[in-house]
Structure formats: structure tokens, C-alpha cells
């Protein structure tokens, strides 16, 4: 549409109409003059004076009528143009608003910085309508807050008036409760206003999520009466802002929650291991800088496995939650409590010496011990724990050392009869540190230089006596070129949070070799507990699978029974995810004292690897020694799970296993781990 200049249009009509009227008026004044001269000087014998006058009257009347017609016509046209102009202004406004709406793209950045985002949009909207303030009231359950965005840097007086009016508007909801107010300025320029009233228009929104409700409002310090048209504009702006902020705020909450759970344990709401390690690293650097001490308490429940086995894991979860509550309540504000494993917790006491930390640990121990949990069928459970306590810098000078020593202290506490607090002695520390430091050094070097590499131990199908799979085992080549088992480094790596690196290196190398050798047999790969819920690790694994074009059906992941029991929910999630992609899944060390038949039934497991201890003890003449293996075999057959026997060290054992009906075997007798496939 061509842009019409309404002002010029009106001027044109006024000019033409005015010109005609002006001329008609001049004619009228001529007629008036004629009439006067006729009245004064008419002396004709031939004409009646009155006929002239009749003629003049007639002309005068026509002129008058014409003036009236042109006048009315012009005024009507002018009014019509003004009306059109208002309509077009509305249309322009609509176009402006539409343009602003088009700019409304809810990116993640916008959502997380919704205030900055809202400020930008409000700046745009100011060009549509010059409002004085905008407010957002959010009611997020416990938290009520008003954000006020001022269009200018108003004086205190105006700000007070705006705040009062907003509170008055919200009085139904606020009900005299004090509400936090945050004030934001859209522009830095000041403004003095001469106003007569304060108009507040507001709109309430309640998205589907019950936790986020709110009210948006627009405030105008009006110098005169606000017209209906303006109110319509105000309301259209309001609906835009409601849409934008309502949705971005709701999304921002959702994202905050996601981020919260990335750093928290969803079961207990405590920090998770990842966050705890970040805090610990930070605390070490802070303590180094400021030259102060802090302490660490590690806690491991003594009878959790028993509770889980006896009452089921739902009660187990209840116990973990109540332990978390007790720990949180028993420490000071600012102390950090985290759940770092199935039934393992840590407490980080910043700027606290050992003496005080031991007192805290004792208090925690007593509080746990005296806590009673009631199950649904009326049983009373009590839970107790062992505690290791260490201090920075006495027991360790960095995150890894501290974790190592405190972990050791905890296991000393277990050895000494459980339910006690243990502080490592200087000699002990010296010994551990010395040994572990050496190990730690080797570990770090091995990870950095990728000195880990896989050995492959064949797994035989007993009935056919042929290799159907290989288990990948980690080895390290030390500086002398000797190959050593990586076992002791793996437990160290788990303590210091490096297990993922080892797993990644082994998987990388195994898959590469599998592809290069064109091996079609299955590969069994061990997972450390730390990678179970680490999505970045799994992304890496899946990318390797693609890279080497390996069919997931040829890969079986193993996890030990001990780890599986500790984090049943996480393991279940992992298994389901892996199954969907077509991978196999095995439980390792089955029967090693943690057996929970529960997950055999509920998890889609493909293989059970029976703990080697049972296999070693198998004697044909001793029915007791075979009972356990027989019952596992029977159970797994019913559930459609294949069985694998470990530690097969002689021919006799193979015969017994065949007789029982175990599907597969692996051990020194059948084939030692080799650096390559057979």
C-alpha cells in the first residue's frame, strides 16, 4: 500500500474547499454591495426595483446554499480522513507489533537470561507505546517476586507511586505478605513527568505447569485521561509480553531443573559425585591460596545391602533419603553433603580442622544409629555407617590424595568392626601415600600416554567347544616394557575419578582391533560404575561404534553385581538404553555375596557370569559345592538368561559345568588372556 500523507490530504481538501468558499463569500459581498447601490440609486422607469432585488435574493440564496454544501462536504471529507488515519495508525501499530513478535525467538540463551531478553523486547515495544513501567509477578510456589522494568530512570517519588499501584493491583494475591521486588531500568535517561493518574493494566497467566503462575502488567503515569483506544494498545502489548515472558520463564524453570539434576542426585536431592568433585577441587585451591585447613568425611552404610535384600529396593531408597536428611540436618550451613555412590556419602567441611571434623563425624554416626525407619508392614529398621575422616593438608595435598586416603580410612573402619569413625595414622598415610603416589603417578602417565591396552580372553561355548566371544581385559605396559594387570590401577582410578578414561581407552583400542581383524565373535567389555550415568561417555562409545561400523549385537557390556545393586535405578536405565540400541548386557561376579534375584527378573539381562569362587570349588563328589551353580543355572534358564562360568581351570570343571548345563566358560584352562585374538 502506498503511504498516504493524511496531513497533506487534509490540507488539499481544506485548500480547495476553502478556495471555493472564499470566492463564494466574495460574490456574496459583491451582491451585498449591489443591493446597497440599487437601494440608494435605482431610478429606472422601465424596471421594477423589486424584481432586481428578487433576482439578487435568489443569487444570494444560491450562494449561501453552495457555501453550506461545500462547507459540509469539506468537513465530512476532513473527518473521514481523520478517521481513516486513526485506522491506519492502528494498522501500523499492528504491523510494528507483528514485527516485534517475529523477532521473538526463544533460544536457550534468551530463556536463561530472560531479564535481558525482556529488556530488549520492551525497548522495541516502547516505540509502539510509551509506557512508563512493566512488571512481572511470579508465583513459584514458595517464592513470590515482582520484577519491575522502568522505561526511564525515574525519581524515587515516581518509583514509589508505581510500586504502590502495582502492589495495590496485586493485593488479592499478595495478602500483606512481603514480596521481593527487583527493579530494572530499560534506559538510563531520566524523565520528569507531570501526571494526573497512574494506570495499571494487568494480565494473569497460568501455564499448564502448576509451579509457575504469574501476572504481567503495564503501568502508565498518565497526564490525561487514557482513552479506550490506548487501553486496547496497552492490552495488546501486554498479551505479547505475557506470551514471551510467560513461556521463557516456564522454560527457564524447566532448564534450571535439568541443570539442577545434572549436579544433584535425583533420589536424595544431595549433590552428586560430579558436583562434589568440582567443589572439592575448588576447595583445595581456595585452601592453598588462603592457607587454611578443611576436612572431609566419607561415609559408607554398613547394613544397606542387607536392608535392600530383605525389604526391597523401595525401602532401600527410603533409607537413603532419610540418611541424606540426617546428614544435611547434622551439619552447618555452608558444609556440603553429597551422595557419591550407591550407599556412599561425603561431607565437605570448609575451614574446619580435624579435631572438629571428628566431632562432627561422631555426631553423624550417633544420629544415624539412633534413627529409626518404619516400613509399610510395620518393621523398624535402623541403619548405621562407617566413617573415614581426613584433613587438608595433613592427609593429602590435592583432591586425588584426599579421596584416596579417606577411602582407605573408611575401609579401615569397616575392618575394625563397622559403625565407627576412623582417622588414619601418620604411618598409615605415609604407607598409602607412598604406594599410591607411585601408582597414581603411573596411572596418570598411563592415561595421558594411553599405555592401557586390551588383552582378550576367549569365552567358549561348552557344548560345542568353540570360541564364541572374548572378554577385553585392561593391561598396562610399564616403563620397562613389562605388561602388568591394570586391576590395582582400576580401583585407584575409581577413587580418583579417572575410571572413565581407562574405559574409554580400552573400548577405543578393542573396537579398532575388532574391525581390523574382521572378528565376528562377541566382545565382552567391562564398565566401571562411574560411567553408568555419564552421557558424554556413551556418546563417545556410540561414535566409536559408527566409526568402526560394528554391529551392537556383537558387543556385550559387563557390570559387576556389586555395582549393579548399588545403583539399581541408574543401571536399569542404562540397560534399557543399551538394549534399545541392540547391545548385550551381562552381570559379572554373580553370587559374590550381593545377589539380588530381583534384577534378574526385572532387568533385560542377556548373560550372568557366575563368580569364579563357586566355580573353583566345584567337586563332583560334593553335592553342596554344585548346589549354588545348579540353582543359578536353573533360574537363568527359566528367565532366558545365558550363563557363563569364570575361573575354569581344569578339565574336570568343564565336565561338571556341561553336566549342570552352564552355557559358556572362560578361564586359564580354556584360554589365557592374549594381546590379540586367537
Amino acid at each position, binding site marked *: 500500500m502506498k503511504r498516504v500523507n493524511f*496531513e497533506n490530504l*487534509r*490540507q*488539499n*481538501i*481544506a*485548500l480547495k474547499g*476553502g478556495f471555493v*468558499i*472564499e470566492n463564494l*463569500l*466574495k460574490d*456574496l*459581498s459583491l451582491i451585498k454591495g449591489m443591493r446597497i447601490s440599487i437601494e440608494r440609486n435605482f431610478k429606472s422607469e422601465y424596471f421594477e426595483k423589486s424584481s432586481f432585488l428578487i433576482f439578487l435574493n435568489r443569487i444570494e440564496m444560491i450562494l449561501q446554499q453552495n*457555501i453550506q454544501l461545500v*462547507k459540509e462536504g*469539506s*468537513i465530512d471529507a*476532513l*473527518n473521514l480522513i*481523520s478517521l481513516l488515519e486513526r485506522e491506519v495508525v492502528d494498522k501500523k501499530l499492528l504491523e510494528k507489533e507483528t514485527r516485534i513478535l517475529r523477532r521473538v525467538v526463544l533460544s536457550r540463551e534468551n530463556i536463561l537470561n530472560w531479564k535481558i531478553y525482556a529488556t530488549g523486547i520492551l525497548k522495541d515495544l516502547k516505540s509502539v507505546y510509551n509506557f512508563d513501567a512493566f512488571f512481572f509477578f511470579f508465583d513459584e510456589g514458595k517464592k513470590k517476586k515482582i520484577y519491575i522494568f522502568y522505561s526511564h530512570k525515574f525519581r524515587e517519588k515516581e518509583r514509589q507511586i508505581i510500586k504502590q499501584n502495582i502492589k495495590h493491583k496485586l493485593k488479592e494475591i499478595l495478602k500483606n505478605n512481603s514480596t521481593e521486588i527487583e527493579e530494572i531500568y530499560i534506559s538510563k535517561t531520566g524523565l520528569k513527568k507531570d501526571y*494526573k493518574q497512574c494506570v495499571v493494566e494487568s494480565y494473569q497467566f497460568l501455564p499448564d505447569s502448576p509451579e509457575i503462575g504469574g501476572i504481567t502488567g503495564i503501568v502508565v503515569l498518565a*497526564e*490525561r*485521561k487514557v482513552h479506550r483506544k490506548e487501553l486496547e494498545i496497552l492490552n495488546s502489548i501486554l498479551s505479547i509480553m505475557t506470551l514471551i515472558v510467560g513461556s521463557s520463564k516456564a522454560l527457564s524453570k524447566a532448564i534450571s531443573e535439568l541443570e539442577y539434576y545434572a549436579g544433584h542426585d535425583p533420589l536424595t536431592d544431595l549433590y552428586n559425585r560430579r558436583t562434589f568433585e568440582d567443589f572439592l577441587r575448588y576447595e583445595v585451591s581456595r585452601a592453598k591460596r588462603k592457607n587454611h585447613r578443611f576436612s572431609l568425611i566419607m561415609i559408607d552404610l554398613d547394613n544397606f545391602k542387607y536392608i535392600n535384600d530383605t525389604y526391597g529396593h523401595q525401602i532401600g531408597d527410603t533409607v537413603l533419603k532419610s540418611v541424606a536428611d540426617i546428614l544435611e540436618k547434622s551439619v552447618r550451613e555452608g558444609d556440603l553433603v553429597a551422595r557419591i555412590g550407591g550407599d556412599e556419602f561425603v561431607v565437605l567441611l570448609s575451614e574446619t580442622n580435624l579435631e572438629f571434623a571428628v566431632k562432627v563425624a561422631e555426631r553423624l554416626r550417633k544420629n544415624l544409629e539412633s534413627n529409626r525407619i518404619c516400613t509399610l508392614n510395620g518393621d523398624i529398621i535402623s541403619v548405621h555407617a562407617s566413617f573415614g575422616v581426613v584433613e587438608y593438608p595433613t592427609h593429602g595435598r590435592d583432591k586425588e590424595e584426599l579421596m584416596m586416603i579417606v577411602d582407605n580410612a573408611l575401609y579401615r573402619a569397616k575392618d575394625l568392626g563397622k559403625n565407627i569413625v576412623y582417622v588414619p595414622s601418620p604411618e598409615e598415610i605415609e604407607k598409602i601415600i607412598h604406594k599410591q603416589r607411585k601408582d597414581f603417578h603411573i596411572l596418570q602417565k598411563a592415561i595421558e600416554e594411553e599405555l592401557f591396552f586390551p588383552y582378550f580372553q576367549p569365552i567358549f561355548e561348552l557344548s560345542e567347544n568353540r570360541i564364541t566371544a572374548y572378554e577385553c581385559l585392561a593391561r598396562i605396559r610399564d616403563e620397562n616394557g613389562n605388561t602388568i594387570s591394570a586391576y590395582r590401577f582400576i580401583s585407584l582410578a575409581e577413587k580418583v575419578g579417572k575410571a572413565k578414561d581407562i574405559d574409554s581407552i580400552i573400548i577405543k583400542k578393542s573396537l579398532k582391533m575388532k574391525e581390523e581383524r574382521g572378528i565376528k565373535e562377541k566382545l565382552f567389555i567391562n564398565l566401571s560404575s562411574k560411567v553408568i550415568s555419564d552421557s558424554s561417555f556413551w556418546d563417545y562409545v556410540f561414535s566409536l561404534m559408527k566409526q568402526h561400523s560394528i554391529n551392537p549385537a556383537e558387543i556385550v557390556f559387563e557390570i559387576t553385581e556389586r555395582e549393579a545393586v548399588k545403583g539399581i535405578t541408574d543401571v536399569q536405565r542404562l540397560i534399557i538404553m543399551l538394549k534399545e540400541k541392540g547391545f548385550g548386557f551381562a552381570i559379572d561376579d554373580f553370587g559374590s555375596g550381593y545377589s539380588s534375584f530381583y534384577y534378574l527378573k526385572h532387568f533385560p539381562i542377556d548373560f550372568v557370569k557366575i563368580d569364579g569362587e563357586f566355580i573353583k570349588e566345584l567337586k563332583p563328589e560334593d553335592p553342596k559345592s554344585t548346589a549354588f551353580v545348579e540353582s543359578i543355572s536353573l533360574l537363568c534358564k527359566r528367565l532366558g538368561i545365558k550363563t557363563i562360568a569364570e575361573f575354569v581351570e581344569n578339565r574336570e570343571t568343564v565336565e561338571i559345568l556341561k553336566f549342570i548345563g552352564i552355557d559358556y566358560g572362560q578361564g586359564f584352562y580354556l584360554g589365557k588372556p592374549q594381546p590379540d585374538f586367537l
Partner: protein
Amino acid sequence: MDRILFENKNHRFVLIGFAESKEEQGIPSNQYLIIHKSNGVLLDPGGFGLFPILLSRVIKHISLKKINKIILSHQDPDICGGLNIWMEMTGADVHISRLWLRFLPHYDIKDMSRVYGIPDEGQDIEITSGYSLKIIPAHFLHSPGQVNVYDPVSKILFTGDIGAGLLPCSENKLFVEDFDSYVQCIELFHKRYMASNEALKKWVKHIEKLDINIIAPQHGFLYRGESVEKLIEYLFNLKCGVDLM
């Protein structure tokens, strides 16, 4: 350019023309419209050349039928030239110093019965019940029978030729920003047109009792804040007209 100089719930004082007459080859002049509870008053609406522009602006604020009064500060053609058409279009009554009543028919006024004379000492003209404009005498500044119009609501004083400046028009500026440098734009005109310092002193006595926010002349920039005081003081001391003969 048009601009609302004052506005509240039932009152508006609007500048509807500011130095518009460049096209006219005439003197750039300012025109004003006062609206009180939908009763309109035009001050010095100007010659016919300005009629289209002003009409197109007036109509944005008020319908023509609601303009009940036109007040003229004196008899000059830059003020009365378009009177006939304004009277025809609005149906308004006209007020002008009684000294000039007899001259108006020369502007081809159709209906002199709608033109009223203002007495020498000035008067209050009631616009609607409870609201009147004060007509203040300003004789010989520059014409005998010259009047000012004071609006008690907006506290704006319309002074006609008093304080008038001849200037190159500026789009963004409306008010005198620095009186001392603006003096040169008003000095020559006042010395030549204003009758005498005595006349100026008499006028100052009339207006110094008023509470004035803005002085709005018929030509040039408007005065507010300290330039109001400075203008009054300047005029109080100005030797002009017969003083300089």
C-alpha cells in the same frame, strides 16, 4: 509543526502553527488553539494562505462546530486575512478591540453581528461556565487596541506582537534557549514597532500580577522559565518608538 503546550483532563493549549507562512512570502507566524471541556477558542488564526494547514491540524483536536470563539490581538492582515473563511467554517463569534470593529468589514466579513468589541480596559470572556479567558490591554504595542490573552488554567500568556522574533525557522526548537543571544532577533522589531517605553511599562504593570509559565507570541520562539522574567525585564527598560525619535 503543531505541539500540545499544556494538557490535562479537560484542558488543552495547542500550538497549531509555528512559522508556517514561508509559502506565503509573508511573515512567519504562530497560531494557537485552546480547548476547554470541548469548547474551542482560536487565537489569531492568520491569513487565508494558512487556512488549509491550520484546518487540517485543528480537526485532529476538535470538531469545527465546537470552536465557539476567535480572539484577535489586533487588526493586521496576518491575523485577520482568513477571518471570513474561519467564521464561515466554524460558526464562531469573534472578539477584537472595539477600536477595530469598523475596519473589519473591509476583510469582506459576511456577518458582522457575530463580531464583538473588547473595551479599552480589557475584560474576561467566558468560554464555558466556570472558565474564562482574561483579555489584557496592551495598547500601542504595537497598535492601539492591542490585547493579550491569558489562560488561567495552562498559565500561558498569548502576547501577539510583544516578544515577537523574526527568525530563520528551526524544526526542533520551539522555546528560547538562551535569552541573551536571542535578544538580537527581537530588538530591531521592538524598537521600531512598539510605541514607547511608557506603553511597555504600563503593560508590564498589567501582567506582572499573573502567574505565567509560558509567553506565547505571534512570531518566533516561545518563552518559558527564566526567559519569561528576562523578557519582561528587558521590555520594562527598553527605549523604543517615540523614545528614539
